[in-house]
């Protein structure tokens, strides 16, 4: 019998890794990709809750400090309940195996990255293709590069926006728009970002782009180049190195939107990590619990798989870990939902659950719906109807857990890796008889 990990995002991958390292047989059962595949290229551990817009850019706290502050503010957050030592150990194990990200130095200040919407934000670490603004020498002039005809990114607007940021935060960087020719045919303007990435990966793609950047430097000198997130999927790390050599300056990406190569790279890294772990490419639709133990999982194709322990890493709404069909529920076991450490009282209109009770009036409010999740004990075991754990060998990880809000806490992947790793370790320990 295997420890069955339900879900193959970052949390599921971390759980699989940890369970296997603890000596268990592992099976990963998963449907289509969820939130992890739609990520940008940043790996967030925590935003600094004390950060204020307009703070000096060099006033960034260390990653450790940001996480501590978040844990102090959000007492139900996994960092608060499991401790930062647990987070550090999990990251050390997971990031080294994922490979797509530089390792985290917890005592170092948060990194700075630019986004395709013309903003700058902090993060713990990023994919190697992403340009870290904090690594650039003071006084660097950064070229915001637009591939002529590819209008997903308006370099003039983004450069102006980043310049506003630099002024506001007294960062010693300047940003200028630069247009380079790379697309070849009229119809290329309609290409999606991952298709442009394939052009970059193609035989002469890097050479052409590198030459274009080098050529642009002769017309307008710059000390670094910020590009849209299209620098390859499979070969991303080497592409950026080669471009840097050809252009003669640091080259890297801005954070890009959902459905672009940055998310695809994380997805590919997860697939690589899970390559030698048995997988069942099917959604789990039920878990059989008997005498307080999870005994088997039921897949959507009808298969029943015996399990020695189960880790639910199914995400929140995007991944399908929670669904709202009228009322909100957890679809596999109908586990009760919690909010801020207490059972969530979901207001229901006669004909369905009231979305205005779940979502605030403002689009960027701290919506209850996006903080809901399954309740959990200190060993990451979901709570059942009576407030006790649903089963001794049932665990949960990632966005499915209540107590954190990835959109405001800036801890999405950090929580996924931390809770995934420990849920996997403890699931392996609980597999028993």
């Amino acid at each position: 019998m295997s420890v069955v990990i339900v879900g193959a995002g970052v949390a599921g991958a971390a759980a699989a890794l940890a369970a296997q390292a603890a000596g268990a047989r592992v099976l990963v059962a998963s449907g289509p990709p969820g939130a992890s595949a739609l990520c940008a290229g940043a790996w967030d551990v925590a935003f600094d809750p004390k950060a204020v817009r307009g703070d000096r850019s060099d006033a960034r706290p260390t990653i450790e400090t940001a996480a501590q502050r978040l844990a102090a503010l959000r007492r139900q957050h996994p960092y608060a309940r499991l401790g930062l030592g647990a987070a550090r150990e999990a990251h050390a194990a997971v990031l080294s195996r994922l490979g797509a990200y530089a390792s985290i130095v917890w005592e170092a200040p948060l990194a700075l990255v630019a986004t395709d919407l013309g903003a700058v934000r902090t993060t713990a670490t990023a994919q190697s293709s992403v340009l870290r603004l904090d690594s650039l020498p003071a006084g660097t002039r950064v070229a915001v590069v637009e591939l002529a005809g590819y209008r997903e990114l308006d370099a003039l607007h983004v450069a102006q926006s980043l310049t506003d940021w630099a002024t506001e935060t007294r960062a010693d960087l300047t940003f200028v728009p630069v247009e380079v020719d790379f697309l070849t045919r009229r119809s290329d303007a309609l290409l999606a970002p991952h298709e442009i990435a394939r052009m970059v990966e193609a035989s002469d793609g890097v050479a052409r782009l590198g030459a274009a950047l080098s050529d642009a430097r002769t017309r307008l000198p710059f000390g670094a180049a910020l590009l849209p997130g299209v620098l390859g999927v499979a070969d991303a790390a080497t592409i950026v190195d080669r471009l840097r050599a050809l252009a003669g300056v640091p080259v890297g990406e801005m954070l890009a939107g959902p459905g672009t190569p940055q998310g695809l790279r994380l997805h590919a890294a997860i697939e690589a990590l899970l390559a030698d772990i048995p997988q069942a490419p099917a959604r789990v639709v039920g878990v059989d619990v008997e005498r307080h133990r999870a005994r088997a999982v039921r897949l959507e194709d009808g298969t029943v798989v015996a399990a020695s322990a189960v880790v639910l890493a199914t995400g929140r709404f995007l991944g399908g870990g929670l669904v709202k069909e009228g009322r909100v529920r957890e679809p596999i076991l109908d586990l009760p939902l919690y909010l801020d450490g207490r059972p969530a009282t979901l207001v229901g209109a006669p004909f369905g659950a009231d979305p205005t009770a779940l979502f605030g009036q403002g689009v960027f409010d701290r919506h209850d719906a996006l903080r809901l999740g399954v309740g959990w004990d200190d060993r990451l075991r979901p709570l059942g109807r009576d407030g006790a754990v649903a089963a001794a060998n049932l665990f949960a990880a990632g966005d499915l857990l209540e107590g954190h809000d990835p959109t405001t806490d800036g801890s999405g992947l950090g929580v996924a890796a931390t809770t995934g790793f420990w849920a996997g370790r403890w699931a392996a320990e609980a597999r028993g008889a």
Partner: protein
Amino acid sequence: MVATSAEPPAQFDAVIIGGGVNGTGIARDLSLRGAKVALFEKHDFGFGASGNSSGMIHGGPRYLEKDADVTRRSCIDSGYIQRIAPHLLFRIPFLLPARSPRRLFEYDTFFDAYDVFQPLKRGKRHTVLTRDEVRTLEPGLSDAIVGAVTFDEWGIDGARLCIANVVDAREHGASVANHHEVEAIVRGAGGAVRGVVVKDLVGGGRRTVTAPIVVNAGGAWGPKIAALTGLTVKMRPGKGIHLVLDRRIGNYAVSATAVDGRTIFAEPWQNVSLVGTTDDDYYGSLDDLRATVDEVQYLLQSMESVLPGIRQARIIGTTVGVRPTLYRYGVLEDDLSRDHVIYDHDRDGVPGLFSLVGGKLASYRELAEEASDAVAARSGNPTRCSTHLRPLPGGDREIDPRALAERFGIAEYAARRLVYRHGSRAERVLAPILSDPRLRATTCTCEPVLEAEVRWAVREEMAQSCEDVGRRTRLGLGPCGGMRCAAKCAQIVAQETGRSPAWARAEMTDFLAARFVARRPALDGDQVRQEELAIARHRLAGGLP
């Protein structure tokens, strides 16, 4: 106070307050008669009921019983609208399902009468379908349906109709402005109208505009505008919402009897489907309309009786409008007359002021003609109406979207949508692409909307915000709800209007917030997943608080 010879002549023959279909229709009518008119719209053209209706110029078959004249005149005017703006109309065949053979017979008989009016609007005669036939056409129908009657209506984009009218007015000399609020109506000797004081809500600043006639075409805002002169204009404002579904859920519109006996429908409409509508006396703010959870559930429950799968459909938004219905005490909203009245306030002590109450989208042109006749008579302008004869901008000739697509190197589907919105003027919209190929790029992928059209909306159609662009092009009103296009649209509007990136970011946020408000009361199913993604995307990348 007596007018002296030192007083300058009035700047305009008439000022029109309100940029809905009636106000813009009157501005066009009068301009075509050579009158010099100004039009001021507080929000944007089509902001109110005109841009949030069921999107049909229907003949109102249900008025046939009580108000046959309304039906007849609607059908005649629908025929005119087809002539002057054929590009804006699309056929919507309707299914009226029956739950018993007796009901089917009743419908059949009723539509024999409605058929009389169909030729007026080039509609097809009704047919009667058996159970098997109707299920072949629409497999999603409830098992309880035994047959159906088919009839024909025309769909239209109300906001585009307003834009077409206002652009034509401007091209014939009218001075038109959106985002301008009339704050006062200036009066002179004997209480006569002398003009208005208007505030520019975007640029700031106030000015006085002189005219001896003011037409209050404010729709549901009408009573508030009349009250500027102390007059009471009675109205029964009727709030109506629609659900917007992410795709065409069928090829036919389907009618249903609602839980309270009213008739509602689900209709395929451009790239989406609309389910509607409600009709409730409304006493709240007109400037911040929101659909409620109850209204959403009412429509879903009622539609479910005929289309059991409707709750699986993905609701991507709601539209809300308030009808300026004629006042009558003691009558159910649904039963109120859809006729219109033009009040000449000369008899109320405010000579020169006219107020419009009531009306339907289908007969807007007729109402505009009557109002223009009244204004022209008062001005001593003998020119007759010609709005039923002269095509609206883009309506003069047919354009082949495929040829357009090849010539400008754009997708054929994008060309078709462009031709729908702009008719023969689609060429002018696309022309800049030849010198600047970047304009070929797609700004909104759901519709799609090309960058050339977004810039055209700002330069030529007075769009000042993402919401305005959305009204003109449907950008951001599709399944992505602005997630993919709000930022880009805001950047383009900022560039076209000379504003900063900070303004663009605020504009993007405002647009996303407004789309969210429209979606919130109906959030369910897959749309909640989309919401999670869109909120995360903008929070984490937008540098938002």
